[in-house]
């Protein structure tokens, strides 16, 4: 584990090397646009500022009857999409987690959208994605503890309830494996987003190099598939968070679970 971290940090260092001492701001030259953290904060500020202004405008259109503000209607649709996803994945109590998941969706989505126009973006940077994944997994733990209590949540890690001698033998092993897999969720969430967005950049660069001899920017033809990636990756990030939440917050009683799933289905149906 430690060895792997050392290796990946060496990898990152070797990626950073070409910039040398002049690594402030974004390097938009050849190779990878790996920005310093001040440069990253500029992009984060663009994303967060845009979202803040849009949401503030949309909030003005809120009223008790119906929304006439176009922006409010747009965000209502986004909300319905996220709510549908949460209720469909987690069950009827999934509506409680919509604010956090919608925040993540908008952050990842606008970060990905920024990656279409700029050489780098918050979500094309491993550190930002790792932070986002840490927040996501920490939130899952928080909700798990809130739903089942601290010991109930830790009990989830120990696998099924076994009796007597078997519990002493197997439960610690399952516990360790589950904790490791919980930690690996950070890695998988962040690497997936980073690999998809940054990989899109590198593919575009490689195709531009291909067409450089005849002055045709082949990389531009990748835009449609990158646009698909933008939507799908934002959705997958939130969907996986919702799946982790559903794994952690479900209650052990069986009849209640079935009832919840049924109620969730009934809620989903009219929105389609």
């Amino acid at each position, binding site marked *: 584990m430690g060895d*792997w971290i050392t*290796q*990946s940090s*060496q*990898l990152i260092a070797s990626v950073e090397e070409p910039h040398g001492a002049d690594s402030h701001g974004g390097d938009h030259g050849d190779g990878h646009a790996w920005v310093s953290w001040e440069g990253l904060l500029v992009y984060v500020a663009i994303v967060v500022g845009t979202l803040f202004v849009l949401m503030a405008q949309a909030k003005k259109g809120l009223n008790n009857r119906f929304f006439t503000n176009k922006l409010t209607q747009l965000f209502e649709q986004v909300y319905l999409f996220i709510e549908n*996803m949460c209720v*469909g*994945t987690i069950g009827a109590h999934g509506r409680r987690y919509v604010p956090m998941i919608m925040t993540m969706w908008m952050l990842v989505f606008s970060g990905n959208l920024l990656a279409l126009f700029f050489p780098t973006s918050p979500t094309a940077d491993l550190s930002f994605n790792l932070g986002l994944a840490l927040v996501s997994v920490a939130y899952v733990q928080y909700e798990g503890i809130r739903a089942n209590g601290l010991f109930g949540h830790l009990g989830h890690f120990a696998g099924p309830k076994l009796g007597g001698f078997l519990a002493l033998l197997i439960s610690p092993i399952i516990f360790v494996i589950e904790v490791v897999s919980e930690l690996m969720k950070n890695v*998988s969430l962040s*690497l*997936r987003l980073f*690999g*998809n967005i940054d*990989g899109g950049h590198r593919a575009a660069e490689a195709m531009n190099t291909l067409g450089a001899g005849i002055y045709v920017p082949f990389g531009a033809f990748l835009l449609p598939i990158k646009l698909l990636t933008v939507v*799908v990756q934002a*959705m*997958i990030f939130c*969907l*996986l968070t919702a*799946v982790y939440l559903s794994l952690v917050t479900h209650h052990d009683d069986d009849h209640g679970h079935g009832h919840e799933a049924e109620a969730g289905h009934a809620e*989903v149906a009219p929105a*389609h």
Partner: protein
Amino acid sequence: MTGHIFGLGIGLAALGVGIGLGMIGNGAMQGMSRQPEAIGKIQVAMLIALAFVELVCLLTVFIVPGSLKI
């Protein structure tokens, strides 16, 4: 020399992941065509499976260069 091995590793990973993604798409499309009313649920499950499979290829990109340095 290591560059060649690196390329081979990525290529092999891409080969396996391509087969895996194709099989997921195949299964999902067959399921959707047989049961169009379940398209929403099948799509969600398909996207999750796609995400897990393509992570393998991305992990190869990160791990192969690191393991070659030993």
